[in-house]
């Protein structure tokens, strides 16, 4: 309260001006004594009293980055609580229909940016349908027509070697004839034919470069084409059509009749039986290979299809002509197969939620009828369609859209009827409880896992687990740390010495060993993990508390209180401990991310050790996603981004808290 106040009236009392003391104020005659005629007493504060916490809050709110971090953290924590409850997508059962869907945020075409589409380059196409080819092993196409957006840009790609998909869809290329033993001989023989020497027999073929595996060792392989007479099952190279040579041209057209006649030199022979064959002889101690592109045998201008082939790839796959056989140390494969590949934008969601044909069991049909989706009268006649109608409700929800026929099955004495029809996949999955929305426009924000589960929900369920672990650990560690540190610091002496050695030994054990030991000995669960984290986690807190007690226990106010008869407990908890309340709050907050981090590290390092059964922690989720870093990186990216955001926010928030609770920072930011 001001001692002086500005005078309202200009005149000054006469007795005051005569006083010597008031002489100094002469120039400031505007002032008067306020309390001259009042009694002085305490006046209630007009401003509101502030507490330590309110003051800290005020200062905390001034730091913009900390407040933002706190807000983001709040959102993430809220999401960790709400998402596992509110998101109805099933993350327990497998549903491979939704496997590996990429993240989708909006149901608009954003040119591939988080809209559930992707650009597929060089997917193998089926040359007949010009659509993505079905996998040879599973018989199912990886990319279906419903998902393809726009045109497929086709191109041909040359691949080496033979794979099952090359054989199924490839074209052209070369058949390789490879000698598989050092210095061996390989024969590649056509089926038997009767060669009429009176007719005009012509072969045309393309054979290319013969090479050895290691040209530096010298020696060249020899290759040739023969007509082999079959005599008692053995192949005798009777007629050399192209003598063994290393000097290969590309294309050969040979008049077989005259070549054979020239060699047998016996006009009484008018026909021979045998087969054509390629022969490859590898040089001493080496392997050799040659390439053959096609082989055409024609009699009087007509192609003999039982021996000829024009497309090496199709021929080797058994799609064209008839099979030639190998003799000797020989191996066949393909070289330079042409594959038809296509690049296109692909909508994974449209593909996953397309309609397909499906066989509905009688039980399923009955359940749809009971739910009031549809009506159906059975004909009980295989292949026919009974009376089928969708109700109003069914138009929205019924997974069957169309019935194409009844199916009858009998297993021993059990007869069963089922319906095949067009199934709406999203309605089916909604009805079965796999997804939460009855709409094909459902968005999985972080994509789906190998098991077709919503990764967004998995991640936040794991986060809830880890946050819970972090909060509990932090509370327990701080409690233990404060009590331990307070006792050790307050009493000092041999108590302190003993307790210090104990913490030193506990702290000396590497955390990962302790954790592993506990989990291996007691099994892996939330509670053992909590125990492992709490076993050494409190040491840091106890050290800080201890030093704080050393600092304050000798202070005068403590001495004063002790003189007044305060008990040890009162001194500890009422007088010394409150000095460190800010530090405790700060380290409590900062302990949560460090627990999440430790848990994630352990899950990363020891995936075999940490296992929570059906519930997943954040770290386990991340370490599982790590396996798909190359093939489906969106999982590890979204997980890592969330992890990074949490860590940054916790650090900013913790720093803000530390500054806010630090009394020496008071007024520093103002």
């Amino acid at each position, binding site marked *: 309260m001001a001692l002086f106040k500005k005078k309202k009236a200009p005149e000054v009392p006469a007795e005051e001006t005569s006083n010597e003391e008031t002489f100094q104020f002469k120039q400031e005659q505007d002032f008067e004594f306020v309390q001259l005629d009042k009694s002085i007493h305490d006046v209630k504060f007009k401003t509101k009293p502030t507490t330590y916490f309110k003051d800290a809050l005020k200062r905390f709110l001034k730091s913009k980055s900390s407040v933002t971090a706190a807000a983001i953290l709040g959102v993430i924590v809220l999401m960790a609580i709400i998402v596992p409850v509110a998101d109805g997508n099933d993350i327990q059962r497998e549903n491979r229909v939704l496997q590996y869907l990429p993240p989708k945020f909006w149901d608009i075409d954003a040119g591939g940016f988080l809209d559930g589409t992707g650009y597929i380059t060089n997917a193998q196409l089926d040359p007949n349908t010009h659509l993505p080819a079905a996998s040879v092993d599973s018989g199912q196409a990886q990319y279906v027509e419903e998902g393809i957006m726009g045109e497929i840009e086709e191109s041909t790609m040359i691949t080496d070697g033979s794979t099952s998909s090359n054989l199924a869809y490839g074209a052209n290329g070369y058949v390789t004839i490879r000698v598989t033993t050092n210095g061996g001989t390989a024969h590649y023989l056509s089926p038997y034919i009767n060669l009429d020497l009176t007719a005009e027999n012509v072969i045309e073929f393309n054979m290319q470069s013969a090479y050895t595996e290691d040209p530096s060792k010298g020696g060249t392989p020899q290759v040739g084409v023969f007509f082999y007479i079959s005599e008692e099952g053995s192949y005798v190279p009777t007629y050399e059509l192209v003598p063994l040579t290393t000097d290969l041209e590309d294309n050969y057209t040979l008049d077989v009749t005259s070549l054979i006649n020239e060699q047998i030199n016996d006009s009484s022979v008018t026909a021979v039986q045998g087969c054509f064959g390629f022969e490859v002889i590898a040089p001493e101690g080496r392997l050799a290979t040659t390439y053959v592109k096609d082989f055409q045998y024609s009699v009087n201008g007509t192609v003999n299809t039982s021996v000829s082939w024009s497309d090496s790839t199709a021929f080797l796959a058994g799609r064209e002509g008839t099979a030639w056989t190998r003799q000797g140390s020989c191996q066949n494969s393909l070289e330079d197969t042409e594959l038809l590949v296509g690049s296109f934008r692909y909508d994974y969601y449209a593909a996953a939620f397309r309609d397909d044909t499906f066989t509905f069991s009688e039980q399923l049909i009955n359940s749809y009828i009971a739910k009031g989706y549809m009506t159906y009268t059975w004909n009980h006649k295989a292949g026919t369609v009974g009376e089928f109608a969708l109700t109003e409700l069914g138009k929205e929800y019924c997974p069957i859209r169309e019935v194409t026929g009844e199916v009858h099955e009998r297993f021993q004495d059990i007869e069963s009827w089922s319906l095949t029809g067009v199934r709406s996949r999203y309605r089916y999955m909604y009805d079965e409880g796999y997804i939460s929305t009855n709409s094909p426009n459902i968005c999985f924000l972080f994509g789906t896992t190998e098991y077709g589960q919503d990764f967004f929900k998995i991640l936040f369920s794991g986060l809830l687990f880890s946050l819970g672990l972090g909060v509990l650990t932090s509370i327990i560690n701080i409690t233990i740390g404060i009590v331990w540190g307070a006792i050790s610091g307050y009493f000092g002496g041999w108590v302190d010495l003993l307790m210090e050695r104990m913490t030193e030994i506990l702290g*000396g054990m590497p955390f990962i060993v302790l954790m592993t030991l506990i989990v291996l*000995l007691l099994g892996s669960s939330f509670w053992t993990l909590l125990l492992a984290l709490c076993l050494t986690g409190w040491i840091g807190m106890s050290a800080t508390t201890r030093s704080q007690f050393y600092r304050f226990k000798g202070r005068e106010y403590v001495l004063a209180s002790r003189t007044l008869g305060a008990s040890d407990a009162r001194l500890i908890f009422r007088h010394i401990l409150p000095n460190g309340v800010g530090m405790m709050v700060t380290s409590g907050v900062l302990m949560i991310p460090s627990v999440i981090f430790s848990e994630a590290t352990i899950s990363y390092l020891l995936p075999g050790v940490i296992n929570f059964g059906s519930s997943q922690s954040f770290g386990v989720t991340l370490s599982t996603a790590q396996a798909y870093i190359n093939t489906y990186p969106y999982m590890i990216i979204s997980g890592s981004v969330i992890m*990074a955001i949490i860590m940054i926010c916790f650090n900013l928030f913790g720093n803000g808290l530390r500054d806010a609770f630090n009394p020496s920072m008071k007024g520093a930011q103002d």
Partner: protein
Amino acid sequence: MWKYVVKRILLICLTAFIVLSITYMLLQCLPVNEPQSLSNKIAFWDQQVSLGYCWKVPVEKYNLIETGQIIPTTDFYDDVGNRYAYVYYSIIERYGMWIFNIFTKWDWGVSTQIEPTISAMQIIMERLPVSMELNLISVAISTPLGILLGIVAALKKGKFTDDFISTVIMIFISVPSFVVISFLLIWFSYGLGWLPSQWPTNSEALADPTRAALAYIIPVCALSFGSIAGFARYTRAELCEVMSSEFLLLARTKGLTKGQSVVRHALRNSMVPIVPMIISQFISILSGSMILEELYNIPGIGNMFVEGINRRDFSVVMVDMAVYTLIGLFATLIVDLSYGVVDPRIRMGEAK
């Protein structure tokens, strides 16, 4: 001073001894994971017998096993039908033998899984150089870079440069190393294909030295980012504090240029807490980074520790633990001593 050092070293030995003893006993509570192949199995158990941890049940006592009077730790037949049964002594007896073997023969036991029948000490010695090499490179890179960044940030305090550097530091300190490694792998190994996604094996490295050299980039980056951020943050904080002190103002008043005052007065004083930090970084060179070695398949001791625990190869884990514990304890001692060297005002162990 020397008395203090000797006292501390004795204390370190005592602590390490207790820590290792507890770990040994705890690890012995877990079932042993014997080698897979029969010959290794027999060799392993015979070696255990010779070291005095267990005894082989003689043929005439096999009936005691059948009646349940002896419960063997392991009991198996070889290809010709010879029976082998071994019984472990109690944990306390084994512990005694273990201590005896270490002090008399320096025998830390053999590996059972990682490299069966090879001495655990030998395996560690083979793997230590790999971890050390990587960490040496990363310390050599991160120390000057981190300090430089910190100095720049402190000199430009409150300006855009400082804000930018501080934000980057904040991000690098917060983001866990496995996240950094994951992103580096996604971008540079799988996406662009510039860098290998795995540490090359010895034969691969010989065949393609360029790729082997490129394989250093990701691990060194992953190891350096965190320590660069750490150094930069400390340097910035220390230098900022020194810059606002009065002796620096005095130096400027005397007529020194800003550069002179920073280099001769501010930097020297701000190095007091940073030099111990560099030293502790150098010591942690030895320990390697478990997560990095695991993710990048680097055959260092961190990777071996994880592998040892996952496959329950406890001799290897014990040797590795001993290395880690001793490094950790000596690191604190050296850091404590280095304070006295850097700042003559600090005398460790001085009586009050």
